């Protein structure tokens, strides 16, 4: 069993930012992440981020990831990789499963920065190999350096769908089109405009009906829907594709918060059931904080601000910062978040 003052679960943008903010105070911090590398989804974000030029705006995500990691290393923040948390038990006991076995970490404060998971969609053929989350396709392209397929149909026109489409094109993969159930495109117009310039059609008021193929995706069938959400039968289109990417939203990965007994609120706009937190990111369970997508689905820039706030608050409650300092930081961050969430 080892001891730490602040344990942070998840080393993505929120977790790393929390780690830096807390470790700068002198608190003993450890990060736990189940992946091979820290950084969460940052390292597959090869596009430039929106945001304020005060922060990281205009920088590509993976470069932001590198900067955060460098800061963590400078501060000698301990990072356990390939380690997942199997449970959080009474009195701050964290069960960590590492490649070498199970370890117990005793922490005074715990920050949950576990992120989110892609939503899935069931339709005939949706279990065929070749149907995958857009985030998964993005990981293949931008982390593993593998094309997920040659011809892709994208389902969902949110920012993830639009950005991944663009990045698939950059990776030399053809995207035959984007399907969007709603009557209007969900993501930013500048993202949609840049893929339209590259000749990719967007089918609003359309839905995926079927993936066809023998043991793998060979064709995708889409159809137009009318105002009553009924499929217009003579509108069906078939595409020869080997991959169907689903970009239909994210769900917070909140199991650990459930396990801790956190109070949840249902907030569809933020993705699903979200653990309640106070203005300092602390949940109703004392010493348990949340930050990033687990506290509501949003951009990485929001996750970084929330992580910073949680890290500052946890360190303050251990006596490493004074309250006046925390209060000042909180009001700045809150201001920034208000801007970013718009």
């Amino acid at each position, binding site marked *: 069993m080892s001891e730490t003052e602040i344990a942070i679960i998840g080393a993505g943008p929120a977790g790393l930012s929390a780690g830096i903010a807390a470790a700068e105070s002198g608190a003993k911090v450890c990060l736990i992440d189940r992946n091979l590398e820290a950084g969460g989804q940052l390292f597959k974000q090869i596009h430039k981020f929106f945001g304020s030029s005060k922060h990281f705006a205009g920088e590509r995500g993976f470069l932001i990831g590198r900067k955060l990691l460098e800061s963590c290393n400078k501060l000698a923040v301990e990072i356990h990789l390939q380690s997942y948390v*199997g*449970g959080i*038990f*009474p009195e701050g*006991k964290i*069960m960590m499963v590492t490649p070498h076995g199970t370890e*117990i970490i005793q922490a005074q404060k715990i920050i949950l920065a576990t992120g989110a998971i892609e939503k899935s969609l069931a339709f005939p053929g949706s279990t065929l190999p070749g149907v995958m989350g857009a985030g998964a396709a993005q990981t293949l392209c931008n982390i593993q350096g593998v094309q997920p397929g040659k011809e892709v149909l994208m389902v969902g026109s949110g920012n993830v769908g639009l950005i991944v489409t663009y990045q698939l094109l950059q990776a030399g993969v053809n995207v035959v089109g984007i399907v969007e159930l709603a009557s209007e495109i969900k993501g930013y117009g500048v993202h949609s405009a840049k893929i339209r310039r590259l000749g990719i059609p967007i089918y609003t008021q359309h839905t995926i009906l079927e993936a066809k193929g023998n043991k793998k995706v060979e064709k995708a069938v889409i159809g137009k829907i009318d105002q009553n959400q009924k499929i217009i039968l003579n509108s069906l289109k078939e595409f020869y594709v080997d991959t169907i990417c689903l970009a239909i939203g994210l769900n917070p990965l909140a199991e650990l918060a459930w*396990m801790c*007994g956190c109070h949840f609120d249902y907030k569809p706009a933020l993705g699903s059931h979200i653990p309640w937190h106070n203005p300092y990111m602390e949940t109703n369970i004392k010493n348990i904080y949340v930050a990033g997508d687990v506290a509501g689905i949003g951009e990485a820039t929001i996750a970084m601000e929330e992580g910073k706030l949680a890290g500052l608050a946890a360190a303050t409650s251990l006596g490493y910062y004074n309250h006046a300092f925390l209060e000042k930081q909180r009001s700045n961050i809150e201001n920034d978040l208000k801007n970013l969430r718009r």
Partner: protein
Amino acid sequence: MKRQYVDVIIIGGGVIGTSIAYYLVKEGVKVTLIEKEDIASGTSGACDGNLMLLSKSPGHHFQLARESLKLFPSLIKDLDVNVGYRKNGCLMLLETKEQWDLSQKNIKQQQEAGLNVKLMDDKQTRNTEPFLTSDIYGSCHTQENGHINPIMLTLGLYQKSRQQGADILLHEPVKEILYKKGQVLGVRTACQEIYAKYIVNATGVYANEIGKMTEIDIPVLPKRGQVLVTESIPPFINNSIICGCYLKAKHHLCDKKDINDPIVSLGRGLSLEQTIEGNLLIGSTREYVNFDTRTTYEGMTAIAQHACQLFPKLKEVKMIRSFSGLRPATIDGLPIIGHIKTLKGMLLAVGHEGDGIILAPITGKLIAELICGKKLSFNIQPFSLERFKDASGKLK
């Protein structure tokens, strides 16, 4: 404040309460069921699905469970949801010479009671369960066993009762029991008063909280059982499995000595079952920790270690979840079913501990028979509240 008049008020929306509602509405009785949270949100939603006879001590307990098991096939046919019911065998593993010797006597009693059970040596046992460790003495085996999804069963009973006219109030805690001169009158919730001739307390671990409203002590204590859930895997066990110390853990825990022994209280009541979906449910601890429903590292480790000892292959299987539920336990392991002598119209159907699922149909049926003045299909004398009282009427 709203007022209502019904025949029977049932307090508690678990498997027992909904089963009582189900059997009462069948008799044409006007029923209101009041649940403080949601259907199956307590014990019935946090337990395993074994319908097990082998673990019952010979006598009333065993007979009651056996009568109840007989009711399942027709009951399930009547429900509109798939409750995942299936028959399977049950195997009690004997790990030590001591257990083997003990079981010789136990099995004879069970056979006399009418259970088709046989003793198997280590080889026969491993033929039945190929993934079992070779380090085993033998086992007791019976084919009289079943398996069900407890949440779906409770929801099925709820749905059917409602369809047939039961009024079911959710998220409405009972604030007060109205009674006068030794006779119940009804209950008061935050927004209404409901009057009835009979009130059934089917609140499981909260039995005593309701009891206190009428100044009657009901000796039911919450006993926490932690359960591990694994990922879905191909058929791994052919039977529901319990270990030989199950009985001991089940019945002897009320000894002060045993409660303080972590090995006894945490890992010694192992049971293993595989759901239709393929997940293994591995349970369970038996701890008195009031109403704390968290899982603990110590509890989970104890369960996992014991399970891996018996089935070494389990080391390669991923655990995906854990949960714990509170079992309404009585000191002698038997439920409390029947009238409260000192308060006319008040009935109890509580204290089923880990047997609520298997005992739900018979409990529902018996309470319905009691209220309708019918001939009882089972002698409930051994389950009366009076058994806990001394000559002066005080709890022992």
